[in-house]
Every structure is written in structure tokens, then in C-alpha cells.
């Protein structure tokens, strides 16, 4: 079994390495083989995961730890290459390989015309490998390795079309903003090592539970530093603004990295370290509030976006906000469950959006689309499924997971958060159907010039099914987090929560059914609010003004190195002194005579004084 687990990340890694190195050795691989390799590697990994599932069938409480090799061993600082498999990581691995495989398959069609086909698959495979390392790691340093590597792959893929400068800027932004969080996380790692003397996740949590009291400020600090990493990676407040820009990458990339897997790494991290977080109520509260605020802000921002991918991006932020909210409320399994369902329906949505874009010569603006329901029925259906699941319409996968979260909030008597979540749910349903209605109903303004390829349709199908029927919580999760929540649902409340999204959909229908949109807003106040929401609550402008501009100004100011002027000053002083001393070299014999006499006088004076 250990080999099997090892194979899971290694297969894509090998494929990536091969694809990267081939050009270096002047090896040209024919395009179909590139696709076969790239897709095949992830597919093989997925098969491995399936075998794993079969082997673990029936077991609910399992935790497998394998150590493969030693990495660093200095004094007491010992780090191994080791994998840890339990229900949580299995769920993650399944999502990554499963959804990953589908997206790879889809990409084979989507990227068909791109000349950098090979590079694309190399990156994508590398990403999958890194992500798998992240979720399988048994210690925080290895996790950090995966964590940074996925960041790097994300950077490379966002900036995949690098000749467009904006894409690379978006990539930079993504990397640097996540790096800010990552550095906090690194500090957290230092602190954890300092406190516990180990970076092994399980050992560390055991120690924490046994030796530290709940609410200890050191533990809180640890949690907050880890949270910083999670916030950065998962696009939560205040480091969320990179994610909308990250849509500059190819759409399948957005689906895989910026919806299904990488951005949920933060959720995974906190769930992974839940024992630690449980020791710190303050940190938990922080997580919950960050999630709540983020979900609200992102949802409202999604309301007014025009770019289909940006809408989805904001919705991703918002949905991850839900997960954070769940985590903060201690609903670990609910959070991971939502993570899973979100992976399905969001991947579906992105892929559908990709198909849309693919068919409409890279048109992103939803207001230039319309009436596509008949022309692209397949896309329309998958979109509908995705939007419904996103809106948490009853009986779709999103419904179950979101329901769990809301319930948990009530159980924990976090009413204000519950309220925000509910409002968020309303807004979510509204913007998702706004998207759907605007794109597929109304007047047709644009003709699709081609239909999605077959390889692209298949993943849509599978994901659509998953989005509909994926609302089954994996058993292992509940066991792992020992959250056998008593089902004492208040029926009224359940009904109420079901009703909220439905209302929203109805309202959206009223507003957008006939394509009466795009008209200028009536009053300046509304315009202002629109602009504010459109800019994602002005975070970008704020950062630009308060952080980036001052930073650039400061560095510009000091471009020539202020310290250097110290030495230049020294040079000038020396030159001045040189000229001063040279004055006395007047060439006048009598002055030279004088110097002898003056020296004699001064020296004798000194002797006399002494």
C-alpha cells in the first residue's frame, strides 16, 4: 500500500518532468502523445486512488503513515518524506485525482490549438503532483513544500499566456499575495517547532493536546500564523483580491486550481490541524469571522461582475468563505464536505464556462452573450446543474453541504454568523441565476462558431452527475472528526433555508428573464455602489494606494542606495582634503623654509608645555 500511495504523486511528477525536460534534450513528442501522457498520468493516479478506496473499503477509522526517506536531519530537527492517509486526505486525494483527471481530459480538447501544448500539460501535471504531496504530507514542512509548489504552478499557469503582460502581472499578484500568507505560515512552522520540537502533524497535535491548555496564547499564535497561510492560499480576507485576477489563466486551470483544489488547501490545512485549532477558541472565532465576512463581500461582488470567469471566481471566494465559516464553527466534516461538493459543481461551472468561451472566440463578457440555450444545449444543461448546485437548490449536492453548515451554526448559537450565511445564500442564488439567465436566455447576440469537442463534453457529463448526486457525505469524515451531530433539525428553519435560495432564483428570474439589463443605472448613488461592488469592495485600489504605491515610491527613492552616498561622501571629502593639502605644496622655497622653523617652534612649545 505504501508504494501505491507513493505512486499517486509520483506518476504525474514523472510525466511533468519528462515533458519539461524533453525539449532540453531536443526531443520532440508528437502532440497526441503529449496529451496521452499528461492525461494518462493523472488517470493512472486516479486509478491508484480507486484501488486504494477498494482496499480501504469498509474501514472507517484508518490512519496510515508511511515514511519513505529522510529529508533533513539536523540535531533535533528531523524531517522525513512521509505520507499520511486518513479519511480527510483520502477525500482530498480523490477530489484531486478525480476532478483533476476530468479537467486534464477536458484540457486536451480545450488547449488543442495552443502551440505550448506540452508546457501546459507539464505544468498541470506538476500541479497535480504538488497538490497530492500537499494533502498527503505527514509533516508540516513537506506540506509546505507542496503548498509552495502548488503556488508556483498556479503562478505558471495563470501566466501561461505570458506574452500578454497583464497575465503575468496577475500571476505575480497571485504568487506574491499568497506568499505573504505563506510567510506567516512559515513563521507558524518555526513557532510550532520551537514549542513542540517536531513538525510531524499528528505528533505535534498530540503534544499540543496533552501538554497545552485550551486558550494558551502561544497556541493561538500558532493557529493564527497557520491561518495566515490558509487565508492567503484560499483567497480569504484580506488576501482575497488575487483570485479574480487569477482568471487570466486558461479556463481549465481556473477550474482545477482556482476552484476545485488549490484554493481549498487552506481549508484542508485547518481541517488537518483541527486538534490544534480546537485548543484555541480565539483562533476558531477568527476563522469563522473571516469566512463570514469574506463570503458576504465576495458574494456581493459577484453580483455585479460582467466577466463570466470573474463571477465564478468571486463565487469561489464566497464558497470558501462558507467552508471557513464551517471550520470556525467547528463543523470540520461539513467544511470538507462542502469542499468536495464545491469542487464538483464549481469545476463543472468553470468547464462549462470554458466551453462557452471556447465556442464564442474567447468572449468573456456575459452581456455580450445571450440566448445561447438553444445553440449550446449541452453547455446550457451543465450550467444549469452547476448554478443550481451553487445556489444550493434542494437535493443537489451543494444543498446538503450548505445545509450542514447552516445547521451547525445554529447549533453553536452563532446567530449573527448564521444570518450572514443566510444572506450570503440568498445572494449566491441570485448571482448564479443572474449568470445563467443572462447567458442563456434573452436575445441571441452572438453566434457560436463551433461546438465543444467530445473530449470536453465527457468531463462535463461526469461532473454534472457528480454535482447532482455528489451530496453524500463520505462516512470516514464524520468518524474522523467525531462529529456525529444529532439530527434534531428544526423543520421550520430547514424549510426557511430551502426557501431562501428559491426566492432568490425567483427574484433573479423577475429581473433578468427578458434580458432587460445593461441599462444605465438610474441614480449616481447606485452607480457608486455598483462601482464599489464591481471592484470587489475596493480592495485592489486600497492595496494599490496604501501598499504598492508607497512600496514602489520608497524603492524608487532609494534606487541609488542611500548608503552608497556615504562612501561617495567619503570620496569627496578625501578629494577635498587632497586639494587642501596640495595648497601647501606651493613650490615656494621660502614657505618651505618657514615650515621647518614653524615645526621647530611648535614642537618646542609642546615640550615646554609638557
Amino acid at each position, binding site marked *: 500500500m505504501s508504494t501505491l500511495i507513493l505512486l499517486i504523486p509520483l506518476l504525474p511528477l514523472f510525466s511533468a518532468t519528462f515533458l519539461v525536460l524533453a525539449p532540453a534534450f531536443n526531443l520532440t513528442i508528437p502532440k497526441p502523445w503529449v496529451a496521452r501522457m499528461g492525461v494518462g498520468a493523472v488517470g493512472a493516479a486516479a486509478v491508484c486512488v480507486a484501488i486504494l478506496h477498494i482496499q480501504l473499503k469498509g474501514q472507517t477509522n484508518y490512519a496510515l503513515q508511511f515514511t519513505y526517506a529522510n529529508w533533513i536531519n539536523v540535531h533535533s530537527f528531523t524531517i522525513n518524506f512521509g505520507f499520511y492517509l486518513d479519511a480527510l486526505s483520502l477525500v482530498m486525494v480523490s477530489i484531486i485525482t478525480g476532478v483533476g483527471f476530468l479537467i486534464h481530459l477536458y484540457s486536451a480538447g480545450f488547449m488543442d490549438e495552443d502551440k505550448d501544448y506540452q508546457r501546459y500539460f507539464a505544468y498541470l501535471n506538476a500541479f497535480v503532483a504538488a497538490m497530492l504531496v500537499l494533502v498527503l504530507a505527514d509533516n508540516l514542512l513537506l506540506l509546505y513544500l507542496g503548498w509552495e509548489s502548488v503556488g508556483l504552478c498556479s503562478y505558471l499557469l495563470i501566466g501561461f499566456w505570458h506574452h500578454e503582460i497583464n497575465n503575468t502581472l496577475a500571476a505575480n499578484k497571485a504568487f506574491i499575495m499568497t506568499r505573504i500568507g505563506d510567510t506567516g505560515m512559515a513563521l507558524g512552522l518555526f513557532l510550532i517547532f520551537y514549542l513542540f520540537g517536531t513538525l510531524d502533524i499528528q505528533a505535534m497535535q498530540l503534544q499540543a493536546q496533552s501538554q497545552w491548555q485550551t486558550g494558551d496564547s502561544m497556541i493561538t499564535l500558532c493557529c493564527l500564523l497557520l491561518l495566515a497561510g490558509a487565508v492567503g492560499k484560499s483567497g480569504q480576507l484580506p488576501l482575497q483580491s488575487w483570485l479574480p485576477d487569477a482568471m487570466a489563466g486558461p479556463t481549465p486551470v481556473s477550474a482545477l486550481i482556482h476552484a476545485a483544489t488549490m484554493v481549498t488547501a487552506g481549508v484542508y490545512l485547518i481541517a488537518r490541524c483541527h486538534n490544534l485549532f480546537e485548543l484555541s477558541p480565539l483562533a476558531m472565532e477568527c476563522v469563522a469571522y473571516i469566512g463570514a465576512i469574506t463570503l458576504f463581500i465576495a458574494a456581493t461582488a459577484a453580483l455585479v461582475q460582467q466577466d463570466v470567469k470573474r463571477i465564478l471566481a468571486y463565487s469561489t471566494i464566497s464558497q470558501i468563505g462558507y467552508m471557513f465559516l464551517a471550520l470556525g464553527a467547528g463543523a470540520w466534516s461539513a467544511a470538507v464536505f462542502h469542499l468536495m461538493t464545491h469542487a464538483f459543481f464549481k469545476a463543472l461551472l468553470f468547464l462549462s464556462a470554458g466551453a462557452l468561451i471556447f465556442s464564442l472566440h474567447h468572449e468573456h463578457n456575459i452581456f455580450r452573450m445571450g440566448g445561447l440555450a438553444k445553440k449550446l444545449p449541452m453547455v446550457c444543461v451543465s450550467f444549469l446543474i452547476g448554478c443550481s448546485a451553487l445556489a444550493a437548490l434542494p437535493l443537489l449536492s451543494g444543498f446538503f453541504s450548505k445545509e450542514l453548515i447552516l445547521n451547525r451554526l445554529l447549533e453553536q448559537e452563532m446567530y449573527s454568523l448564521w444570518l450572514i450565511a443566510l444572506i450570503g445564500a440568498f445572494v449566491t442564488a441570485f448571482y448564479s441565476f443572474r449568470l445563467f439567465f443572462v447567458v442563456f436566455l434573452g436575445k441571441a447576440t452572438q453566434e457560436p462558431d463551433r461546438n465543444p469537442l467530445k473530449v470536453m463534453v465527457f468531463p462535463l457529463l461526469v461532473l454534472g452527475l457528480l454535482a447532482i448526486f455528489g451530496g453524500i457525505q463520505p462516512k470516514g469524515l464524520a468518524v474522523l472528526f467525531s462529529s456525529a451531530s444529532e439530527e434534531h433539525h428544526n423543520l421550520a428553519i430547514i424549510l426557511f433555508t430551502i426557501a431562501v435560495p428559491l426566492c432568490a432564483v425567483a427574484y433573479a428570474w423577475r429581473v433578468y428573464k427578458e434580458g432587460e439589463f445593461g441599462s444605465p443605472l438610474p441614480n449616481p448613488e447606485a452607480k457608486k455602489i455598483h462601482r464599489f461592488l464591481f471592484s470587489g469592495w475596493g480592495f485592489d485600489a486600497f492595496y494599490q494606494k496604501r501598499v504598492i504605491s508607497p512600496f514602489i515610491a520608497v524603492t524608487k527613492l532609494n534606487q541609488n542606495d542611500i548608503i552608497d552616498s556615504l562612501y561617495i561622501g567619503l570620496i569627496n571629502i578625501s*578629494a577635498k*582634503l587632497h586639494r587642501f593639502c596640495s595648497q*601647501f605644496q606651493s*613650490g615656494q622655497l621660502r614657505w*618651505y623654509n618657514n615650515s*621647518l622653523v614653524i615645526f621647530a617652534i611648535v614642537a618646542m612649545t609642546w615640550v615646554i608645555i609638557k
Partner: protein
Amino acid sequence: MSGIMGFYLPSVLITSTSLIVMLMAALKRTHLLTNLITTVGLSLALLVQLAQLGKAPYQTSLILFDGTTTLVSTLLILAAWLLSLFLFNWLQNLKDPKEEYYLLLLLSTQGALIVCASQHFASFFLGLEIMSLSLVPMIAYPGEDNQALEAGIKYLVLSAIASAFMLLAIAILYLYSGTLSIPELATKVPELLSSGNIINGCAIILLLVGITFKLSLVPCHLWVADVYEGAPVPTTALLATVSKVALFVVLLRLFMLGEWHNQTALINIIEVIAAASMIIGNLLALLQKNLMRLLAYSSIAHFGYILLAILALKPAIAISNVDTLANEAAITYLYAYLTTVVGIFLMLMLLPETHHIDQLKGLFWQQRCKAVVLTLLLLSLAGIPLTIGFIGKFYLTLVAVNAQLWWLLAALIIGSVMGLFYYLRIILVMIDQPESHSETEIITTHTQLLVMGVVILLVIGGGVFPSMVAELVKEMIGLTF
């Protein structure tokens, strides 16, 4: 008796050579023959002097031949010998009669030998005057050259004034102690000091006026640049090396004998002179474009450095007892300075009409051999390891640290860095690529190659394997009464 004669023999040889040269000039002037005779005479003297190394010391009331004397004498003769090898070509380009130059060269070397052997003020004074009065005509040697004339007059007048001050000092010392012998004086100094007067200080100050002038230490350094610039290159070489080194030995001898560390006022003055020489000398050289002036200023700094050894001779508070190390440091540094500077002047003699730094431009690509030698010599002056200059500087640092002369060491560091700047600047000019790449390798004769070889051997050989130098110096310093 023959042992005693051995000590005098180099001087006798040199004097006889000078007489022969004079006779030759009187009878029939043949430049080549004169050159040959001078070279042979100096070579013989050098050989004899080398044979004297390690002999038991000998002294009369006037003269002291101890290890230091013999060692430094060897160096002095060596310098003169090296110069004499290059003189022929250089003098050939001069319109003036040539023979006198050899004569004066020999006489000034003779004077220097006497100075460094003297232990009596009379012999010291007379040797000094022989040396400097022979140098004056050598400075003003080219009759057509206004600058040489100017330099000659300046040197004559200033050195006469300096001599007068020195004589006054000697007279005062004589008046109050009744003796002219340096060791005798040293025994009487404590007695003089015990009565709480300052005559000794006064006399030493007056003596210092003369000595600082001859060693071109700040503040009596003003003349040095003008004279170096005006004088012909070989004369400058002699001025920079032989005359200074010989005088420094006397200073060393003077300071070895007395109980100087008790006289804080004097020590203070010497400290100030040392620091000022290091800093001001280097500052003056910093942006100097004239090669000769630059070397003049750098020599100011070098003698500032070497004063550290004097100050470390009898330190007030030493870190540890290192016996004669300060003495060795001084002699080693003198050795390093002399060989390096002579080498540099020899190279400049090979590059006629080079006054300005920019004239060296591209030398590295046109006359590689010379440029490499010159570069190594400059690095030695700058005190970069694997050259003898570094060994000298290392000795100085060691003894100065031992004597805890921290402020002077700070000046040494500042001075060295400044010094490095202008030495490197010369190297930069040499390696700068000239616009027109012309391979005009001027043919070097075998003599020149030989001389360059000897210089490199002394400078680099001494730097890479300093143990020979160190052991020799230590042994020689040990040979005293």
C-alpha cells in the same frame, strides 16, 4: 686585523672606484669604460659587503659595524649597484658630460655608508653632508633642465638649513654633556633628565627638524615632491632610498639607546609626525597625476608607517615581550621599501620620458614584461601579500599592536587604503586598452632582464618565502655589543 679591514673594505673599494673614475675623467672621457669601472667597483664592494654579513661586530669611537650596519650597508650598495647597471643607457640620452654622475653616485653612496655606520655625531654629520652635497649636483645634473635647477637649489638651501638645525642640536648636546659620541650621550641622558630640565627635549626637537626633513616626514615634507619631480630619475631613486634608509638607521640607533618612553612629550610629537605623515602623505598622492610627485608623496607615507617601529621600540605598555621585534620590523620594512622603490625607479628608467600617469596607458599590452614587473612592485608598495612589502607591513602591524598604538594603527589602515587607491590607479592605467593596438615591444637588453629578475627575486621571493629575510634580519639584529 684583516677582519677589521673587511669592514672598511667596501668603503675603500667605493672610494677608490670614485678616484679612478675621476682620474679617468681627467685623462680621457670614455663613458662605457667609466660605467664598467663603476659597476665593477660596486659589484666588488657588494660582494665584500655580503661576505661581511654575520661577522662579529666591531666599533671605534666614530664607527660601529654591527649586524644592522652591515645588513643595511649591503642594501645600500645593492641599490647603488642596481642603479649603476641601468645608468649607461639613461646617461647616453643626456647631453651633459657623463662621468661626473658616476663619481657623485659613488660619493653619495659612500656618504650613506658612513651615515649608517656612524655612532658619533661628527662622523654622522660628515657622512650626511657628503651624501647630500653629492646629491645636489646630481639633482641639478641636466644643465638644460630648469626644473632640475630649481630642484637642486631647493634641496641645497633646505638641506643646509636642516643641517644647521641639526648642528645646533648637536652643539647643544655637546655643550651640556661634553661628548659627541652617541652611546656616551645615551648614558648621560638620564642624568641630564634627572635635573628636570628640558634641554634634551629641545635638542632632540632640533635634531628632529633635520631628520624629518631628510626623511621627508610631515611637516617637513614640502620639498620632496618638487625635488623628485625636478631631479633626474636615478637621482630621485637615490634620494628616495639610499639617503633615507641610511638616515633612518641612525634614528633607530638613537632611539635604541635612550630611555625614550619616559619622555612623553617627544613620543607625542613623533606620534603626531607618524600619523600626519601617513595621512597627509597619502592624501597628497591621492589624485596626483605626476608619477614622480606621486612616488614622493607615497614615500612620505611609507616613512610615516616605519615610524611605528620606532615608537614600538620601547613601548610604554606592551601586550607581550617580543624582544627585538620592533627593531627587526624597522629593518625588514626598510629592506622592503628599498628593494621595491629601487625597482620602481629602475622600471621608470626603462620607460624614458614618463612623467605623467597617462603616459603609462596601455603599457600592459605593449610592453608586458615591464608592466608586470611594475605592477608587482606597486602591489608590494601597497603591501599586498606575497610581496616583500606585505611582510614589512605585517611586521609593523605586529609590533604596533604589541605596543598598543591603536590610533596610529587606525591611521595606518586609513593610509593604506588610500595608498592602495592610487597604486591601483596606476595599475588601472597600465591595463587600460589603448585605442591603437600596437605591439611595440621595446627590446630589453640582457642586463635589464637580469636586473628586473633580481628585483623580482628580492620583492616576490622575499614575499613568498620570507623566512630567509626574517631569519637574516633577526640574526643580524642580534649582532650587537
